[in-house]
């Protein structure tokens, strides 16, 4: 049986405000899915819900890993079960070296039953593997000694996310705009890197606005999110079309969802102008 991450009829609210309203998405291991959609349509919220962000309230629907619901699992348990997310905006953890952070993380994910205080992967062994992965991603060794995302440029952060994915070797990975803020060459490198570190063995959900990240990770499916729902699913050609044409045609084809989108973003604008 292939391993599967299955999202059914997912409704998510933040502080009582509905954001996702009935998302369906099934990812098998070995598949690449692209998720596109205008800003504010709920893509990052979906990623957060998959990882179990404590602020997100699941009001309806399920998320299943190989047939088992993971809704009751905390974020750490999901990570240890092989679910990963590369953040659109990674957090800095000052004072904690990348290498130390990752050694602990890697041990926990590879030995999911490890209890706090139990041994970590031996330092030597870990360093060696980390160095190899960093070389593969053309990252300077000095990176490992820097504090997690502290003072990193946008590009460095995104590459650090890919490095973490490479070390943790997840079964399923959500990459949330791993290409945004990167220049053309950097996106190329990222795209190539994802493929090189074994993207093909994972089930990947790539959230993006462009098609460049997809160059080396050609999507089997492309989904479009609008107003908190996936409104269309197609192949690789849909990703190209959205990139070149934008979302107006999608909005025209799905007037009801476009109306919800409008409402969601207008509330935001009101809040923004009210606060100003």
């Amino acid at each position, binding site marked *: 049986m292939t391993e599967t991450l299955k999202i059914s009829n997912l409704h998510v609210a933040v502080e009582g405000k509905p954001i996702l309203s009935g998302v369906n998405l099934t990812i098998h291991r070995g598949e690449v899915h692209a998720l596109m959609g205008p800003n504010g349509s709920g893509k990052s919220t979906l990623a957060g819900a998959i*990882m179990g*962000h*404590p*602020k997100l309230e699941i009001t309806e629907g399920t998320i299943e890993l190989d047939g088992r619901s993971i809704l009751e699992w*905390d*974020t*750490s348990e*999901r*990570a*240890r079960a092989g679910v*990963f*997310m590369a*953040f659109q905006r*990674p*957090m*800095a*953890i*000052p*004072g*904690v070296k990348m290498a130390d*952070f*990752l050694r*602990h*993380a*890697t041990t*926990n*994910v590879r030995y*999911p039953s490890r209890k*706090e205080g139990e041994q970590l992967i031996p330092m030597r062994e870990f360093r060696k593997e980390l160095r190899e992965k960093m070389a593969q991603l053309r990252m300077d060794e000095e990176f490992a000694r820097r*504090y997690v995302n502290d003072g990193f440029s946008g590009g460095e952060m995104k590459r650090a996310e890919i490095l*973490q994915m490479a070390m*943790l070797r997840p079964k399923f990975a959500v990459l949330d705009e791993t290409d945004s803020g990167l220049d053309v060459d950097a996106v190329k490198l990222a795209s190539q890197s994802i493929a090189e570190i074994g993207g093909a063995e994972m089930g990947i959900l790539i959230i993006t606005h462009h098609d460049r990240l997809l160059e080396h990770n050609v999507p089997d499916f492309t989904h479009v999110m609008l107003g908190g729902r996936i409104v269309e699913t197609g192949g690789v050609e849909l990703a190209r079309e959205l990139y070149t044409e934008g979302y107006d045609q999608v909005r025209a084809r799905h007037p009801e969802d476009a109306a919800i989108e409008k409402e969601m973003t207008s509330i935001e604008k009101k809040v923004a102008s009210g606060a100003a």
Partner: protein
Amino acid sequence: MSTAIASTGFSQEAFDAFLTTRDEPGWLIDMRRNAWRRFEELPMPSVRDEEWMRTDIRLFKLDRFGLPHSSPLDASPAHATEPHGVLAAGVEVGGRSTTLDGRLVVGELATKWAKQGVLFGSLDRMAAEHGDLLRPYFQRHVVDPFRDKFSALNAAGWSGGTLLYVPKGVRIEDPFHSLSVLGDGGIDFGKILVILDRDAEATVLTEVASLSANGGGLHCGSMELIVERGAGLRYVSLQNWGDEVWHFAHQKAHVASEGRLQWTIGALGSRLSKVNQHIAMTGPDAEVQVNGVMFTEGRQHLSYNTHQHHQAAYCKSDLLYKAALQDHSRTVWRGMIKVEKDAQRTDAYQRNDNLMLSRDARADSIPGLEIEADDVRCTHGSTSGRVDEQQLFYAMTRGYSRREAVRMIVTGFFQQVFDRITIEGVRNALSEAIGRRVRDIKEAVA
């Protein structure tokens, strides 16, 4: 465990009796008498005094304690094990001194430094034996004996304590280690005096602790660091008193022109601490760095007044205090940068960051600037907050349990201070001491 100090309170008779146990020069006895008079005149500080507004000591009963009774040079009651401390573990030291309830247990100075005129050991003995040399330093009153009741009490009744004197141009790599231990219910009126004459260099590691982690007692101390022209001092003090100890201390440094001082404090223990840490840059081009690390729990109250006093031009001072607070504990930091009119081109910085690990903990952070010169750069900042939920989420997506994530984030929070400490052994010892507290973190609050 109880110790054999007979308390005779703080009466005139007790003070006279105390003086008869002292074998020291007349000028020093006179200093003590003056301070004693002041001690008797001064009221106990109260919350009506601005400096004590946030630090209530009504539960502190001075008369439960008394002046040191027997001669400090008497042998201490025998102890099964000699306490060692943590700062100098496995380190080659230039000298070491250990006191118990203010009385000397161990005092050693490496011969090669003794030969160069270095003095190190019990201040009691040094004052008796080297009175002429020490007199001008004593009479500088680096810590003002009349400042408050506690400074007066220490000036009148100090006993035990430690001296380091390094003559002109002598540069010492190996650190000096001094440890003061308090038995349960004991008193420690230690005075620490460090003198680096011109162009001298030294490192001093001091630590204080109780025999038992929940021990009580009273420490009323003073610390005077004199860094003469071109000298360089690295000074570390780790406070690890038992949970019931009352800790009152005045600590002050004079840094002369081109002098350098790196002063690191770690504060983990005591029931209540009220510490004044004062640095005066008395000549141009002095450079001072202050590092502070605090970790409180239970109902501890730690209050620090820091004062960066720029008296001359072209000096630089940089202070960073970080505290993590658990349970119902409380910290107070009041920082003052004072720049005198002549202290042009001052570069001064102060910062205090507090990490709240409990909803019931409280940190007061009160930076202050008083600037009379017009060409200066003075900046300050302070933050207080809980462990960031987004950071926790991020770490948990990498497989960290919530508690592991909290501990890692707290460790990182302190690492930023440790990074400034240039003595590797101290960095490790402090992070180990903090690490022990971090491992005890019960639960993080959101």
